[in-house]
């Protein structure tokens, strides 16, 4: 690490970016929680998941984080009996997205918490750099 | 150290210097008044106390970096050192000023 404090900023920035992507996915899931298909028997919105991965940054030698992939939750859809719905299949059941409000809200809280923590790190790294440069200032 | 300085005020020191000049003997320090520390004693004590405080401040600071020292102790030691250093510098400046002023006096 040529300058550890700059490296710290870079890593924290990657954390912020990853967490905000996660938050975006959560809000997508929440927004589409009731999105069914259009035609009879078709699939509704499938819940998205994020997975993180560590990436070694060659220039600074620190491990940044990135979103490895935005995947799909393969669990089963929720079925509701609504024969009059345009998306109802032959038995009269409509498939609703496999999004659970409770799970998404909990995920959102976690993402928020991680985001705040990364923000704290950014603030601190910036403060440390400022303290160092301040040494030169006339006292 | 501060109380020694208070007991030998700048004016006092200056008066001793003028005494020395009036007597016409510039060599050797003025004889110390009975019971009062002589000026050069005070000066040397001042110098050594400043140096002692500086060394203490440095030692405490280095100890705080390698180990665990209460923050207030470090701050106190450094402040002490700075105070005595600034005082010594101020006195040095005053003495030099006084000497120059005296040296300008027509004999």
């Amino acid at each position, binding site marked *: *690490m*040529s*300058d*550890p*404090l700059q*490296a*710290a*900023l870079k*890593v*924290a920035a*990657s*954390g912020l970016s*990853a967490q905000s992507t*996660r938050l975006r996915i959560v809000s997508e899931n929440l927004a589409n929680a009731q999105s069914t298909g259009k035609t009879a028997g078709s699939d509704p919105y499938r819940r998205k998941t994020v*997975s*993180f*991965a*560590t990436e*070694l940054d060659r220039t600074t*030698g*620190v*491990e*940044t*984080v990135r979103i490895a992939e935005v995947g799909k939750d393969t669990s089963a859809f929720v079925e509701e009996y609504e024969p009059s719905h345009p998306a109802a299949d032959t038995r009269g059941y409509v498939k609703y997205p496999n999004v659970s409000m409770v799970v998404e809200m909990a995920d959102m809280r*976690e993402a928020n*918490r*991680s985001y705040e*923590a*990364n923000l*704290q*790190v950014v603030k*601190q*790294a910036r*403060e*440390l750099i400022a*303290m*160092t440069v*301040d*040494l030169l200032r006339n*006292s | 150290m501060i109380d020694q300085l208070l007991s030998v005020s700048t004016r006092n020191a200056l008066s001793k210097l003028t005494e020395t000049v009036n007597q016409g003997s510039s060599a050797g320090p003025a004889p110390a008044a009975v019971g009062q520390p002589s000026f050069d004693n005070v000066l040397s004590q001042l110098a050594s106390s400043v140096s002692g405080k*500086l*060394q203490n*401040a*440095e030692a405490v*600071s*280095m100890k*705080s*970096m*390698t*180990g665990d020292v209460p*923050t207030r102790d*470090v*701050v106190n030691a*450094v402040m002490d*050192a*700075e105070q005595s*250093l*600034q005082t010594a*510098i101020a006195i040095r400046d005053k003495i030099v000023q006084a000497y120059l002023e005296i040296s300008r006096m027509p004999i």
Partner: protein
Amino acid sequence: MQGIHLFDLASRQAEWLSVRQATVSGNVANANTPGFKARDVEPFHDVLAQSQLTMAATNPKHQEIDASGIAATALRKDAVTEQNHSKNTVNLEMEMVKSGEINREFALNTSIVKAFHRMMMSSVKG
């Protein structure tokens, strides 16, 4: 001349603290990465003792060193108090505590350096 010794030590401590900050930063960013093990640096005292370059491999496939030999090492097994089901060992609260420690030590370090620099300058001025 002894003052120079102080400035050198302060400079090394500042560097160690910066590396520690970068490590904390890495831990916090990777708090949700599966399989990530939280890391910390060797204590400053030990770093001083070994003045030459050291390499502490946390994973045989990748080694991390910097110019002054301060190596980030994985937390020792007994220091890990919890591990969730995705094998991530980062504890955000502990990282915040470490952050606070770093802040305090760094502030003290820069203040000491500033004060001694000031004293040196004022005594040198005519």
